[in-house]
């Protein structure tokens, strides 16, 4: 599906939190996972700026690991504040999606 970017904007941060929450991972792998999920036009630059924001807001723990080739990779894992933020995201998502679905059904 094309042109999802605008709609995804508010939720992409939550998606990235969820991905990091299930296992420690790095930017490129997160982008790939989102692409495979069907969000084809998500680019690494976008994910990277989200990761920087999560880091700045103190929601993730960052570990630098040598990558074999080239510069060291930054791995991200959720800390306690990150898990709390993720729970809040899903609560908000639940609220929004249930209301929108209700709207759609009542319109029929």
């Amino acid at each position, binding site marked *: 599906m094309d042109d999802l970017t605008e709609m995804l904007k508010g939720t992409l941060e939550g998606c990235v939190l969820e991905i990091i929450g299930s296992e420690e991972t790095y*930017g*490129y792998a997160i982008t790939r996972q989102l692409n495979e999920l069907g969000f084809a036009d998500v*680019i*690494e*630059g*976008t994910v990277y700026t989200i990761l920087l924001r999560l880091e700045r807001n103190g929601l993730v723990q960052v570990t630098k690991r040598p990558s074999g080739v*080239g510069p060291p990779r*930054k791995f991200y894992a959720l800390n306690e504040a990150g898990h709390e933020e993720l729970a809040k995201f899903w609560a908000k998502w639940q609220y929004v999606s249930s209301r929108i679905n209700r709207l759609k059904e009542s319109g029929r």
Partner: protein
Amino acid sequence: MTFWETITGSDLTREWKAFEARAEALPDDYRAAWGQVVAHLFPYGDFTGRNLMPILDAGLGLLEMAAVDGQSVQEVLGDDIGGFCTALAGGEGARTYRDRWREQLNRNVAKKLSRLGG
């Protein structure tokens, strides 16, 4: 940072040389993208550009990693390099020369107004 470095910015020149050396090692299309990133980030710089150094380091790090992973520049930065740079610099508290001009203007206007009112 020593006092001498604060005054002359000599450490910045050194850091900048290091960035250039790292950029030299990138593939051609990446080097071109780096040039654009630098150009887009420039307005976010303060007087010496010191606040840009960590931001530039982050951007260059991403390009290096992506080049190693064999991605295309398009896959990494998309069409909107300006948008990427705004996101990269944003929230960093990167105060720009524009912010200072704006403050100065506001201050001057406030001074003038209070003089008129008083």
